[in-house]
């Protein structure tokens, strides 16, 4: 008994370590240590729990099997995953966290130790948020992987109505659970809740376009935290409540940030259907597109004083970050100033481009934020847009009716020369044509990102 409470105090230490860990994330210099502190906190929490289990004479077989299998799978996943697939990875992990919450809350309900109203409400909330997170995340991952199944937003007729009905149903089931107290009825109701919430999770996510998946992932990140916090209320464990709230807050901040960067409200992201109707005719816009070759580009770069790379999702797809770094180094050796302009929602998650370029050993002092580079864009000789599209689309400024209207963009069109590297004229994730490609100072260079850059490097070395 005594040990029990001492152990609970140790949990506080674990929670404090999580907080210190997140504080460490405030700077790249301290971030590694921060992450290790967080991991140490988790280790303390797990060891402490095992102590409790041991002290109360619990069985260890299943526990050990679970720990080993889970850790092994997690490690393999973490070591195998490619940096460009990070959004999917985060989505998957979110889902697992949510799933775990559903199961733990369910298990506790089956044991039926505590049946007061608040615990039952917390159990239902765990079940709902957890299940929505789990299935929502899986669908989101599918969309991010561009699996055929999830290729485009698919909605039933009157989807919003159905979703609303499901939400009301969940509310009723929760009330039912609280009303019926502990016992078989409430377990049954809990299963129903989990099932209905799963369906809701799939519906909600499936009707959102792939371009908005990163927002959904961040939101689900927040949900997975809230699910953990709710589970904390169920099993009366403060470390779950604290950690869950931390993660919840993190998800909300990131969601908010992305919505702002896209100039859309969260409501619009979740329920708004992107209208593709009023879009101007692409062929018309693209009438004056000029394409170029590696040699042309090399020649233009030869005389440039200041070159800015603008990476986008295409760089991630083409794994072109190392090639870009090489080209950057080459230019710097010739005395050119090289910078990288990072749009807050370039790629498929916040900070996506930063991670890729960090992987390729690009000094992070050279990564400039949008607000930092836009004012001096006029003095840029060559802007190389590599696999970015929406984030450099001037229509956001000019056409108040287009889906990305009002989204702040990187004003590459103001640079002296713009070189756009992509495989075709096909649109980005917002699905709209880009007048930049047809601008008089723009040259298109078609090809896979990585190959294109390597060609340019080769051409520059030739001359």
């Amino acid at each position, binding site marked *: 008994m005594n040990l029990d409470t001492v152990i609970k105090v140790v949990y506080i230490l674990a929670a404090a370590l999580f907080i210190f860990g*997140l504080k460490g*994330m*405030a700077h*790249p*210099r301290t*971030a590694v240590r*921060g*992450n290790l502190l967080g*991991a140490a906190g*988790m280790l303390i929490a797990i060891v402490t*729990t*095992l102590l409790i*289990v041991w002290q109360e004479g*619990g*069985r260890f077989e*299943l*526990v050990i099997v*679970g*720990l080993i*299998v*889970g*850790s092994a*799978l*997690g*490690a393999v996943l*973490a070591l195998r995953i490619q*940096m460009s697939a990070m959004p999917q*990875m985060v989505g998957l*992990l979110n889902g*697992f*966290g949510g799933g*775990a919450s559903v*199961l*733990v809350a369910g*298990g506790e309900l089956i*044991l039926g130790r505590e*049946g*007061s*109203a*608040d615990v039952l409400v917390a159990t239902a909330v765990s079940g709902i948020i957890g299940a929505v997170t789990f299935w929502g995340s899986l669908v989101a991952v599918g969309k991010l992987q561009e699996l055929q199944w999830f290729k485009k937003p698919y909605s039933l007729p009157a989807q919003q109505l159905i979703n609303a009905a499901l939400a009301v149903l969940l509310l009723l089931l929760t009330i039912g659970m609280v009303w019926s*107290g502990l016992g078989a009825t409430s377990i049954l109701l809990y299963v129903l809740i989990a099932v209905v919430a799963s369906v809701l999770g799939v519906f909600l996510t499936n009707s959102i376009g792939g371009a908005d998946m990163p927002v959904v992932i961040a939101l689900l*990140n927040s949900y997975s*935290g809230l699910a953990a916090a709710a589970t904390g209320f169920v099993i009366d*464990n403060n470390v*779950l*409540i604290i*950690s869950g*709230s931390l993660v*919840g*807050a993190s*998800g*909300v*901040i*990131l969601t908010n940030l992305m919505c702002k960067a896209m100039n859309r409200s969260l409501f619009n992201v979740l329920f708004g259907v992107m209208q593709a109707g009023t879009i101007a005719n692409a062929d018309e816009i693209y009438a004056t597109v000029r394409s170029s070759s590696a040699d042309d580009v090399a020649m233009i770069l030869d005389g440039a004083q200041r070159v800015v790379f603008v990476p986008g999702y295409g760089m991630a797809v083409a794994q072109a970050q190392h090639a870009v770094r090489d080209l950057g180094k080459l230019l710097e050796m010739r005395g050119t100033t090289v910078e990288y302009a990072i749009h807050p929602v370039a790629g498929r*998650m916040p*900070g996506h481009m*930063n*991670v890729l370029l960090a*992987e390729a050993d690009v000094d*992070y002092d050279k990564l400039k934020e949008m607000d930092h580079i836009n004012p001096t864009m006029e003095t840029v000789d060559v802007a190389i847009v590599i696999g970015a599209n929406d984030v450099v689309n001037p229509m956001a400024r000019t056409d108040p009716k287009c889906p990305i209207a009002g989204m702040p963009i990187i004003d590459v069109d103001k640079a002296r020369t713009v070189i756009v590297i992509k495989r075709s004229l096909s649109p980005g994730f917002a699905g709209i044509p880009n007048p930049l490609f047809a601008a008089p100072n723009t040259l298109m260079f078609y090809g896979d990102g990585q190959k294109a850059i390597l060609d340019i490097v080769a051409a520059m070395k030739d001359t």
Partner: protein
Amino acid sequence: MQFPRLVSLVAFASLVVLVCGIVAAIEPATDGGEAEPSADAASLQQNTDAKHSTSNRREVLVASLTIFVLAVFVGFEVIAKVPTTLHTPLMSGSNAISGITVVGALIAASEHWEKLPSMAFTAGLGVIAIVLAMINVVGGFLVTHRMLAMFQRKKKSP
């Protein structure tokens, strides 16, 4: 922290009202929930127990709520300071932290499954939960470390 303050205040106040409702509802629910067939012999103790349990329960709930609110504050303050550059590692790292559910899963999986079917069931759910949560924990921290190591490596090279 650019959230409109008024909105968050209002949201918070309504949360408080909601919670008050739940708290007020505890007494009947507990009585209903714990109304198991009480052996007449130990009826005195049973009563005492129930009373204690209810008031204790409330204290616990209030404390938990306080902790929740404070933790949300800490979360917002701390996370708002993370620079954009580190937002991807932040996501995966905070993700790993949400794997803390493993604590509950461990306890569930340690039930004596040979004793009662309900315990077996819980233990089964528990072990799956452990696997899911540990993937979350190990995968999250490890992949975050991989990413952050990249940021650090670069710092030293020039």
